[in-house]
Structures are given as structure tokens and as C-alpha cells.
């Protein structure tokens, strides 16, 4: 990343960015929240969820994979985009099994929090009731694929941060699943200290014996909507 400064506008406000940054990185730095699910600041982007889609120079594209360029015009917080994003969140809900009240990730879950932030009440789409496998073979980690949204954060973390490639995809289309490098998770090189064990946005990869320790009302998103941390750094735009 060079130091060359670039300016672009996001929803009419001018922001500064560095050459080589993605739109989402530039927005984060400027305190503008772009909804996202598969993007993780420590990992290379992969463009799975499309929740970060913005209208960039007139065309819809994902903010996490689009590099900034001088004079770029980005629309982010518009009713049309937020409505499409909400539909994607709904799709992810009906694609798996998400019984939030029984889930230990509740309140700390990015999917659930985005549902709230984008105003999803109950999904209006039909549930798909897939067949998915729960893997509790690892002494310290449980993998509940019923909640997996196929964001590949764990795959990328294991490969690029942990140097292990514990995770991968299997199958294609609606039959795509998360798979592991062995007969089951307990049979892989996975360790609870791995980065891959701590990047899952939902309650699919969980550390055993830590669930439900935090009382209700004290989770990350119980206190403030998702994205508030990013918006907190926003400087008052100059007029």
C-alpha cells in the first residue's frame, strides 16, 4: 500500500483513502459503516456474502473487493441497497437453521445483528430445511454446520494466518458445505488457539465450555447495533 492519497465520495461526503485500499477499508477508516458479513479486517477479502454491495461509479459491486480510485462515487446507505442487503440476510437465515433463542452466539452474532440493523422482522422467504452435520469430535471446538453461512472466514484464517488449511468447501451451489481436512474436526490439526477458531461471524465454530457465560444484555450487540464501533470514529465532515 503506498501513501498516495485518493479522494472519493461516499453518500455525498468526501473521504480520503490510500491507494491500494478497498472501498470497505477506506470507509472503515473514515468512520462510514458498510454492512458486511464475510469480510474480516485481518483476512484477504473473498466476496461471498455481497452484503457490502454498494453502487460504485453507477454499478453495484462489493465494497470489500473493489479497490478505491480517484474520484470514485460510492452510494452506500440507500433504501434500495439496504433492502437488497436485508433480502440476502433473510436468504442466509432460511438457508440454514437459526434458532436464535437457543444459540449461544445470540447477541454476539453478526448475522443476527445485521438482521436487526437492517430491519428484518421474521423471514418472509420459505425455509429450506437442509441436511447438515454437527461435528463435536474435537475436544475443545464444536462445529455446528446448521448455522454456517459459508463466508470462508475460517478457511482463509486457517490457510493464511494459521498456515494449516483445516477448512475447505465441498460441493457446489445450494449443496455447498464446509468441510475439514480429515475425517472430522477432531482428526485435523485444529487448535482452540487458532485464528480460525475465532473469526466465525455466527455460531458455527464455537469453543466448548464457554457458552452462555455472558449474561443476556451484556453481549456485543446487546448494547449497540453492529457497526457502531466503526461509526464512532467518524470525524465531523468538513463543510
Amino acid at each position, binding site marked *: 500500500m503506498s501513501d498516495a492519497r485518493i479522494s472519493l465520495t461516499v453518500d455525498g461526503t468526501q473521504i480520503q483513502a490510500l491507494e491500494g485500499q478497498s472501498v470497505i477499508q477506506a470507509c472503515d477508516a473514515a468512520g462510514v459503516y458498510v454492512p458486511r458479513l464475510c469480510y474480516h479486517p485481518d483476512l484477504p*477479502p473473498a*466476496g*461471498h*456474502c*455481497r*452484503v457490502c*454491495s454498494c453502487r460504485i461509479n453507477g454499478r*453495484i459491486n*462489493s465494497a470489500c*473487493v*473493489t*479497490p478505491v480510485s480517484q474520484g470514485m462515487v460510492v452510494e452506500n446507505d440507500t433504501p434500495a441497497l439496504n433492502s*437488497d442487503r436485508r*433480502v*440476502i440476510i433473510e*436468504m*442466509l437465515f*432460511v*438457508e440454514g437453521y437459526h434458532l436464535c433463542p437457543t444459540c449461544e452466539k445470540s447477541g454476539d452474532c453478526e448475522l443476527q445483528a445485521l438482521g436487526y440493523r437492517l430491519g428484518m422482522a421474521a423471514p*418472509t*422467504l*420459505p425455509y*429450506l430445511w*437442509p*441436511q*447438515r*452435520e*454437527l*461435528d463435536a469430535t474435537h475436544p475443545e471446538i464444536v462445529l455446528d*454446520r*446448521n448455522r454456517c*453461512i*459459508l463466508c470462508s472466514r475460517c478457511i482463509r484464517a486457517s490457510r493464511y494466518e494459521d498456515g494449516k*488449511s*483445516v*477448512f*475447505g*468447501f*465441498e*460441493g*457446489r*451451489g*445450494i*449443496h*455447498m*458445505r*464446509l*468441510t*475439514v*481436512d*480429515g*475425517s*472430522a*474436526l477432531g482428526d485435523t490439526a485444529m487448535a482452540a488457539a487458532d485464528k480460525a477458531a475465532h473469526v466465525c461471524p455466527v455460531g458455527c465454530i464455537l469453543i466448548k465450555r464457554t457458552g452462555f457465560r455472558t449474561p443476556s444484555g451484556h453481549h456485543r450487540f446487546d448494547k449497540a447495533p453492529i457497526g457502531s464501533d466503526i461509526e464512532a470514529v467518524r470525524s465531523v465532515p468538513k463543510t
Partner: protein
Amino acid sequence: MMGTGARELREDPAAARPEDAVLIDRIVAEFGRDRTRLMDIVQAVQHRWGRVSAASVRAIAQSLGIHAVEVEDMVSFYSFFSRERKGRFHVRLSKTPVSLMKGAAKVAQAFAAASGAAIGTASPDGEFTIEWTSDIGMADQEPSALINGTVVTALSPSDARSIIAALRAAPADVDPPVFRAPDPRVAALPQARVASHIMKAGPIIFQRRRRGDGVRAALGLSPESIIQEIIKAKLRGRGGAGFPTGLKWKFCRKSPGQQHYLICNADEGEPGTFKDRVLLTEAPDVVFDGMTIAANALGAQSGLVYLRGEYAYLWKTLQTVLENRRRLGLLGSNICGCEGFDFDVRIQLGAGAYVCGEESALIESLEGKRGAPRDRPPFPTERGYLQQPTAVDNVESFACVARIMENGSDWFASFGTRESTGTKLLSVSGDCAHPGIYEVPFGITVNELLDQVGAADAEFVQMAGPSGQCVAPKDFGRRIAYEDLATGGSVMVFGPGRDVLEVASLFTEFFIHESCGWCAPCRVGTTLLGRGLDKILKHRGTLEDVTALEELANTVTRMSRCGLGQTAANPILTTMRNFPQVYEARLLPYQFVPAVTLEEALAVAVKVQGREPVDETEPV
């Protein structure tokens, strides 16, 4: 919950037999222990053992020094690689609206009855597996099928019965099959033939010229002038998107890299298209001429042809054509005696994935990975195959390039319209008297085409395949050209009595099956589109359902990551626009009807309890 999770790697816990592991290692070594050649390696394993078992996956990974999960990620993506052993003869029937209108359902039943295999499973004796597959590129001679990878066409139910009888009587396999050679028992069937059906040869593509003429003509020009000629001819890509070829080459040429690569896209997966098949059968040299000219223009030394797996039967002939060209000095080093002009071509077989026709997915596949498209930028012309500048062009585009060099850009541009110069190969199928290939100048109207193909009574036309549009008679006066009705070449004709919604439903099913799964809006959205349309088809939809379906369709279109998802809703959206009355006729006059009936909702409970519910609304 038990399910499909890590099943694949678990199911087969035994290690590969030591002798198999040695053989697999030999196969891997044959491809230079090169991870990017994983397609060839896995194809060889599938070919030799009839499947790619979990043990084989591990053995391949070990020989390549990579993680098993990386091999599994790739293997499990492609339709032509199977985990389980299939029947000794694996029949895959092409399922398309055209094959069904030509009687594919009856043929499938005949195959099933004669073999004893229910559709989708293997026969109890392990001899046969009968399955459906996506369009195999034979729309002009449906019903068609692949048997152990070899194409059989124009099938009737009695053909199905005689094929099963002949194969049953065929000798058991004794020697391991020779890689890439067709199964001789299938190749010997009388139905194992593919006709070319060139119904109309136009002034450009199917002209007979000496091979190499275009290459020699280009030798007198600098690379920049070759590209300038292509720009002047206003050639636009024939694969569907219509991007100006010369401009693409200009970008590619000026991108810095250690090497420039050239790829011929022969994946031809759009249902209803078969023109690349015919071009590669009848005039392969003009395509290779075009590639060699492109190599000259781009300074590329390696060219790759990505040939769809369904066209494996062309493999051997194409290798012979390449051999001849090497012998004649039209490929290899110092082409046409020109010092330093080195270029050669390798053919890569695909393995049953429509999305691999998308250029960046194609490149991923060529690198031995699952065929998931890449995000842009960077474009392939900047960082494509092996991260080097790469130009991907359609088979027909290369043929046009050769003709432009032979006859000049002005001549080429004298055909067609202002925005769409030259001619177009159309693959016409369905309800018409003369299905086949028509080379027509751009600008021809749908009506004019329908007259030529003998389809005066057409009720709707699917232009450009499922990802294109469903055209109603009111638009038959429109022109086939990039500025009006664009097409990559697929034209499916539907006559009286055909159901628009059934067709839209089959196309939606196609996209569900072919979605790569990488991005949520297409992976989940296509399945939901199928559900929504199904409800209406079953006469359980209301006006609200139609509105909701349209909104969903628009979201999938806007939010999907690549062209597949961005066009997957077209069958629904274009039929809604052009045939609203067909939808209306099926709707119920209520505000809301649940997606499932009471009977369906209770089915599990009824089964568990072993008794029907008591209907209390009934007077006792």
C-alpha cells in the same frame, strides 16, 4: 443431525490400496507433480477407477504435497467426478426443454426399464446408472446422452432398449481404460454419432480457404497493426457479452507480465448452443489460425483451449489437427519460418460445470481449482491465468479473426450492421423443420430467421439461451444484433402447445444446478426462485406470490457476483414481462395461500403416528 457435512472425507476411511497409491503417484508424476494440472490428474483417476474415492483424494494430495481438503474442494465441484462408483455403464441424459419436447422422458423411462435402474441410481446388478444432466450441446439431435463420456444422439425408446441390450452383451472390462480414449463398447454403438447439420453456410465462417492463410497474411503486419485491423473490423466477442475483441487485446498487450496467455473458450455450456462444436468439427484449422494470429498480436507463446467435458469425443481429432499444424510449421517454434514466432496450444478438458464458461471461472479451473469466478478488478487481461495477462476469446471469435486477416477488415465490416459487423453462427433447435447451424449476417429479424428454419407457427423463441430472453411474437420483427436482440448463438423455438412456464421452470432448475455457490444471492436465491415459480406452476400462487417472486428475481439480478447469477432470473423476469397472462391464468384469487398444503405439513406426523388426522370440520 446426520447429513452431508464431512461425509465425503469420512465415508471411505480405508487408505488407498498400496498398488493404487503407486498408480496415482505415477499419474501425478506424469503431470509434472504440478498442482495447476489437477483437472488432468483427477480426470485420469476418474477414468481409471470410475470414481474419485476419499482414499484417492488423499493419495493425490499426498503426491502433490497439498492438503486433502484442497483436492476435495476441487473434486466435489465438478459434475463429472463422482465419489461413489457408478454402474459399469453410466448413462447421462441431456435434460432441456428441447430434449423433453423430442421425447427424452420416454427415452429415460425406456433406459430405466431395460436396465433395471431407477433414474438417478444404479441398477441392482451394478451394470447401469441412469441420470439426467444439463444440456450436452446436442440440441439439434435430441434426445441425446453421454454413455461413459461418449455422445449418443437422436435416441428413441427402442434405441434405449437396444443400447442396453448391446452393452449388456459387451465384454467385461479387462484392461484398464486408456486415458482420454472413448470406451470402445460405447463407441461401437450405431447411435454414437454426431451430425454437424450446417443448414446455411454464410459468406464468412464456412468459406473454404487453405489452412494457415490468415496466419501468413498477418505475418506482414506488426502486432499493433493486427490489433488495429481487428478494431477496424469492429469485431465483437461471439461468446455472448459482445466485448470488442481488438480492445481486449489492446488492454492485454499493454499489461505487463512475464508471459501473456491466450485462451480459447470452447466450454459452450449455454443450453441450446452447439455452434462451437460444429466449428471445431468442420473447421478447426480456422480456429487455430485465429489463435495463432492472436498469439502474434499479443506476444503469447502458450495457448489453451478449454473444451467442455461433454465434447471429449473431439479430443483425438483436435490433437491430430494440432499435430498436423506442428508438422506444417503452423505451430511450434519459428512459425511459418518466422524467427522467434513461437506458439503452441494445449487442450484442457472440462468436467461438467456451466459456470466454467465464465472467463475467470475458466481460468480458475485451468489452474486446477473449483470453477468459482473471480472478482474484478483485476481483469483477466491484467492478471489472468497464473496471474499473467490473459485474453479469453470464444471459438467463433477466433474464426472471425482469421477471416479478417485473410480478407481485410473492410470486407468483414461490410456484412452485418453498424454496431454488429460480420455474420453470426446461430444454433437453432426446437419446434422447427430444419434444426442446425445458420450463418446469418447480423441484423436479420427473428421472423426472417423463423422462415428459414421452417417455424412459421412459432409461439415464442428463447434467444441466447436461459440467460437470454424469452421473445414473444410481438417482438419477432426485432433484429438479431448486439444493439437489439443479442445472442451468443442459442435460438430455441417453441411452437403451439408449449408451456412458457414449464420452460422457465426447467431453465431455473438449470441455474440452481449450475450455481457455483460462492455468493449468497445466487446460491440461495436461485433455489428460492425455483420454489417461488414452482408454487405458481402448481396453481397455488396468488398475485402476492408473483410480486414477491419478481422482487426476489430483481435482488438476485442486482446482487449476484457474476454473470450466472446476474442472468439466472431472466427466465422468470422475461416471461413475466412478455407473458403476464400465462402467469395470471394460474393464480388463485386469494390474498395468501401457504407454500405447503395441510396434507404436506402433516405428512411426517401421519407417517410417525400411523394414522390420519381427524377432520373436525366434517359433520359427524
